[in-house]
C-alpha cells in the first residue's frame, strides 16, 4: 500500500514536472510532436528508474561510510552519464527496434535535471532502496504524462491562432501554468513519505 501511495503521489500530487519544475528544458523542446514525446517519456522513465537504483547504493554504501556526502553531485552526475551510455549500448545491442525509436532521446537525457533531481530528492527524503525506485518510476511516469499531454495540446494548437510573440515556448509555459493549477487539486491527497 505504501508503495502504491508513493507511486500515485509521484505521478499526480508531487508531479516532478508540474510541482517541482524539473526537466523543463526538454519538456519545452521535445513536446512539439506527439511521437517524439512518447519516445522521450519512455526514455526518461527508464533512465530515471535505473539511475536511482544505482545512485542509492552509491550514496549509501560509498559516500556515507567515508563522510563524502558533499561529493554527491559529482558522484551522481558520473553515474547518470555512464548509465545513459551503458543503457544506450545495451538497447542498441539487444533491442534494435526500440533503439531506432528511442535511441535519439537517450543522449539528451544526461542533461535532464529531472533525473538528477529525482536522485537528490530520494536522498533528501531518506527513502529505502525500494521506495526510491518506486518513487523514481512514479516520477518518470508523471513526467511522461506531462510531456505527452503537452505534446498533444501543442499538436492541437497548430490549428490555433496564437499571438506571434507567444508562439512556441510562451504558450507552452501558459499551458503548463494551467496544467499546474489542475494538478494542485491533488494536493494533500497522498503523502510522499
Amino acid at each position, binding site marked *: 500500500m505504501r508503495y502504491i501511495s508513493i507511486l500515485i503521489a509521484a505521478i499526480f*500530487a508531487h508531479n516532478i514536472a508540474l510541482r517541482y519544475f524539473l526537466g523543463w528544458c526538454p519538456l519545452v523542446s521535445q513536446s512539439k*510532436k*506527439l*511521437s517524439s514525446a512518447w519516445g522521450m517519456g519512455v526514455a526518461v522513465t527508464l533512465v530515471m528508474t535505473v539511475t536511482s537504483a544505482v545512485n542509492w547504493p552509491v550514496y549509501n554504501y560509498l559516500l556515507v561510510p567515508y563522510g563524502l556526502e558533499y561529493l554527491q553531485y559529482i558522484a551522481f552526475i558520473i553515474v547518470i552519464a555512464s548509465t545513459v551510455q551503458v543503457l544506450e549500448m545495451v538497447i542498441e545491442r539487444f533491442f534494435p527496434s526500440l533503439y531506432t525509436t528511442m535511441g535519439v532521446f537517450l543522449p539528451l537525457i544526461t542533461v535532464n535535471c529531472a533525473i538528477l533531481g529525482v536522485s537528490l530528492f530520494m536522498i533528501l527524503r531518506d527513502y529505502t532502496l525500494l521506495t526510491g525506485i518506486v518513487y523514481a518510476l512514479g516520477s518518470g511516469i508523471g513526467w511522461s504524462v506531462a510531456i*505527452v*499531454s503537452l505534446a*498533444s*495540446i501543442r*499538436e*492541437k*494548437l497548430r*490549428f*490555433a*491562432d*496564437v*499571438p506571434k510573440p*507567444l508562439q512556441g515556448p510562451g*504558450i507552452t509555459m*501558459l*499551458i503548463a*501554468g*494551467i*496544467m499546474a*493549477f*489542475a*494538478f*494542485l*487539486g*491533488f*494536493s*494533500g*491527497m*497522498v503523502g510522499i513519505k
Partner: protein
Amino acid sequence: MNKLERLLSEISSYTEDHPYLRYITEVIDTIRSIVFEPGVSAEESPFLRDYIEIKRYMFAVVVAVAPAALASIYFYGWRALAMIVVSYVAGGIAEVGFTLIRKEEITEGFLVTGILFPLILPPNTPLWMVAVGIIIGVILGKEVFGGTGYNIFNPALVGRVFLTITFPVAMSSEWLIPLTGGWAGFNQFSVDTVTSATPLGVFANAGTLAPLRELFLGNIPGCLGESSALLVLAGGIFLMLARIIDWRVPVSYLGSVFLFSALGMYLWPNQVAPPLFQLLAGGLMFGAMYMATDPVSSPTTKEAKWVYGVFLGVMTVSIRAFSGYPEGVMFSILLMNMFAPLFDEMVMTLRYGPIEKPYK
C-alpha cells in the same frame, strides 16, 4: 428597423475612414451582425443550410442556465445579479479589448463564459475578485490561444481555479446560508448568514451527510448556480434534447461518479460519501452539464467522450475523498481538458491508423 440598419451601416462607414474611430469599426460591425442577420446566399454546395448558427448555439446555453441564475438571485439576493453583471462587463471589456488589439473578429463564445463563471463562484465573492477571475479566464484561458474555438481549457474554469488557488480564504472558507420562503432573495441585496462549510466540506470534516431532498431542491450552501440540482438538471436535459451538448459526457461522467463512489464507499467508508449524495452535492451536476460538455475543450470523437467522462468521474471521486479540497469537480474537468486532445488523437489512431509520415 430599416432605419436602425441604415444608421448602423452609416456609423460603420463613417468610423472606417476616421483616423481614431476606425479602431471601433469592428465593434459597430459586430453589433450590426448581431442585430441583423445578413441575407447572404450560399455560393457553393450545399445550397441548403441549417438555420442554426453560433449565436443561437451559444444563446441556447444561456437560456438553459437562466433558471439556475434566477434561482441564485432567489437564494442569495440581488448581489448574485451584480456578480453576473460584473462578470459580463469586465470580461466583455477584456475580450473586446484583446480582439481589437489583435485586429480580429469578435466572436460569440464569451456569451456563455460570462454567465457560467459567476455561477460557479461562492455567493460572497468580492466583486473585484469576480472581475479579476473573469479577466484571467478570458485572457489566459482563451484569448492567448486565439479566441473562441481554439482554447484548450474551459475559460470559466481557468478563472475559477485561479481564484481558488490565489485567494483560498475568500473562496473556500465562508459560505452563505441560502434564503427560502416567500420572495426570499428577491427582496434584498445580500445575505449575511455565514456558515463555514458546504455539505461536501461538512462530510469531509465531520462525516455527516446533508438530506438529499434539500440537496436536490437547493436549500444548502454552495456556489451561486450549483445549489439546486433540479434546475441544473433541467437545463442540462434541455441542452441534450436540443443537441447543443452531447449526452455522452454527462451520462458517462455522472455514471462513473455513481459507480466509483459506490465502490469507494465499500472500500473506504469513512472517506467516500455515498453515491446519491455525491451526485447531488456540490458542483457535480453543474460541472457535468455545462462545464465538462464545453465542446471546444472536451474531446470531439464519440469514443473519446466516453473515456473522458469515465476519467472525470474517477478524478472527481478521488479528489473529493482523498485530497485537501472537499470539491473536485473543477479540478478534474480542468485536468481532463488537458488530456482531451490526447484522447481524440488516440481515437483517430485507432480508427484511421497512425500517420504514415509525421509532419515536418
